[in-house]
């Protein structure tokens, strides 16, 4: 069986926040019984402050699915929606001391349920794009949007990783061509934005559906296969240095744009925000005026973070710094 971390076992055997939340005002449901796992996330959100006062879950699935769901509730209780929205599936996995690679989809399920619950609270339809963007993997009911998000959030660069993170392609694999196209497209975008080095990006044709199926089968049949490493979550390679040229420029420009869009709102409240530096996924900003040190600072930061994530589609951390330039 799987080599789960102690924390995964603990959260599986003694799940926190399991059950129904009667007075929930935000609910996210993802997965299906026929696919082998499903999660219903229920939140009680303060409509004024948007603080998540309580969170409960119900999960159908394996040990790591239940542990991931419980971990998610622990991560978000007490946070504002703005803070919660930037929690990634990686955060869930890290919280649990890592998940076996084949089980990363459990953390992605948590991420998707949270996004769905937040959208539900805001009265939006959670990117329910099954209509326009038809299901890509019919075996597990995974649509293109979800796969694209998982690729971006986790910088996935192989079809097998897509299967580990979303289950897409884990069945008949007739979706192979479309998975390949999507992976190549999103990877080249990530390269253009400076999040992925050129040589890491997936190139169409390096994998074949037959190979992947053979490997998956071998994996399944090797009962005594070496246990998966407990923490497979180290990034596959470091980001290119900030001076990597045009690519990073594009990223910085997007970040600048996002901040520019926000500044009028901040100024209205007597504050301001300035981009100081970008280091990998960390965006250093200088908060000024009324924003500084005030109670609203964290709300402002998460607001900026949320906007940047929406714009770039990759996890971004806003790090407030003092600018010593002036």
């Amino acid at each position, binding site marked *: *069986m*799987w080599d789960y971390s102690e924390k995964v*076992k603990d959260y*599986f*055997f003694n*799940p926190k926040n*399991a*059950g129904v939340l009667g007075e929930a005002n935000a609910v996210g*449901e993802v997965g299906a*019984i*026929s696919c*082998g*796992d*499903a*999660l*219903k996330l229920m939140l009680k959100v303060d409509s004024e402050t948007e603080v998540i006062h309580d969170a409960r879950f*119900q*999960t*159908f*699935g*394996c*040990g790591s*699915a*239940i542990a991931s769901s419980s971990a998610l509730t622990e991560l978000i209780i007490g946070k504002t929606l703005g803070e919660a929205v930037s929690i990634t599936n990686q955060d869930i996995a890290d919280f649990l001391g890592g998940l076996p690679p*084949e089980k990363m989809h459990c953390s992605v399920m948590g991420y998707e349920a949270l996004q769905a619950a937040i959208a539900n609270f805001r009265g939006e339809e959670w990117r329910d794009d099954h209509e326009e963007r038809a299901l890509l993997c019919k*075996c*597990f009911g995974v649509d293109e949007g979800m796969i694209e998000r998982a690729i971006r959030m986790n910088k996935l660069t192989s079809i097998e990783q897509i*299967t580990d993170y979303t*289950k897409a392609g*884990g*069945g008949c694999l007739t979706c192979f061509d479309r998975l390949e196209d999507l992976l190549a497209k999103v990877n080249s975008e990530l390269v253009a934005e400076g999040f992925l080095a050129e040589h890491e990006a997936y190139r169409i044709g390096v994998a074949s559906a037959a190979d992947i199926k053979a490997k*998956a*089968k071998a*994996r*399944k*049949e090797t*009962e005594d*296969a070496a246990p998966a490493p407990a923490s497979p979550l180290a990034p596959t390679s470091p980001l290119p240095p900030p001076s990597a040229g045009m690519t990073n420029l594009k990223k910085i420009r997007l970040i600048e744009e996002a901040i520019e869009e926000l500044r009028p709102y901040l100024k209205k409240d007597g504050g301001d925000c300035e981009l100081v530096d970008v280091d990998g996924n960390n965006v250093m900003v200088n908060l000024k005026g009324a924003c500084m040190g005030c109670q609203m600072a964290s709300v402002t930061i998460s607001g900026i973070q949320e906007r940047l994530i929406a714009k770039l589609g990759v996890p971004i951390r806003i790090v407030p710094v003092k600018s010593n330039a002036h």
Partner: protein
Amino acid sequence: MRPVYLDNNATTRVDPAVVEAMLPFFTEQFGNPSSIHSFGASVGASVKKARQQLQQLLGAEHDHEIIYTASGTEADNTAILSALEAMPGRDEIVTSAVEHPAVLSLCQHLEKTGRAKVHYIGVDSLGRLDIEAYRNALSEKVALVTLMWANNETGTLFPVEGLAELAKEHGALFHTDAVQAVGKVPIVLKGSAIDMLSLSGHKLHAPKGVGALYVKRGTRFKPLLRGGHQERGRRAGTENAPGIIGLGKAAELAIEHMVDEQTRVKELRDRLEKAILQRIPNCFVNGDPRERLPNTTNIAFEYVEGEAILLHLTRQGVAASSGSACTSGSLEPSHVMRAMNVPFTAAHGSIRFSLSRDNVPEDVDQVIEALPKILEKLRELSPFWAGANKDPNDFKPVYA
């Protein structure tokens, strides 16, 4: 926590009497059974005795109908490849959708590489072979029929003797993967239409890494491994004398315990199964309740996932296994569950308990005690569980 082992279809404990029988052949009687000097000769005699012990268990006419292999998998592969090579003009294989990967993977490979056309016969919701489809697949083009005697996941028995008769009518060879059947159900090969049969030591309290292929005298045969003259040139490689001798002893013990297996072990299994079905709502038995191994029960639980059940069982000292996806690294339920079209509400929640003569009543009690609470806990967690809406005593699964 008292450990309870209910995963005997995966592998069994080597019987201490088997170990004892083997030990002298590592350090004292270490000779090569093919040698003519005294070191080898005594080993050769012991190997012969072991062959006769196994012959008895199989009800075979001659001891030389047994060819030792290194595993059940090797026996299966040998039988299939031999038949294709030995039956010129015939290039079709008939098998079932629920075979062990030792058969299925090879068939798929032969198909892919254009060496054979394969018919995969389906099963019904109880795992019973579609006899009509089987009849239709048989023809003068079929080199080999290979059908398992007992299914490793559900314990369902195929009526292989009758199926072999049908194959004979078309001149096809008949092989059965009896890895799960040997030692658990009585077998008499003499006078049957079965040409080849595979077995594996570690499923009947002998060690891992030794198996055998029975090849009826007069059956056309081509070896898989070529080299020395061992096994009358049908399987080259110096004999695994300790393993073969251990398998012989295990065969003798299996004959001794056959009645126990059919009575006491079966009663334990039945008691476990009944108690689970009575105490836990919304669950049902996978497989054919009538034609089934005496030691196996596979139970599907609605609205919960198998790995989650297994993790809880493990914590309570109980070892079982699951046909669910999550335990194996695959994402889909096992090919057996899919072939049986197990209802989607339960396809991911199947647990196999497989007993052996090593089990005692307390083992079963421990599971009966632990399992209802585990299911209650997991179902409370499940978003699909809306309470038992049916009387557990007459719950019927809904097949699509």
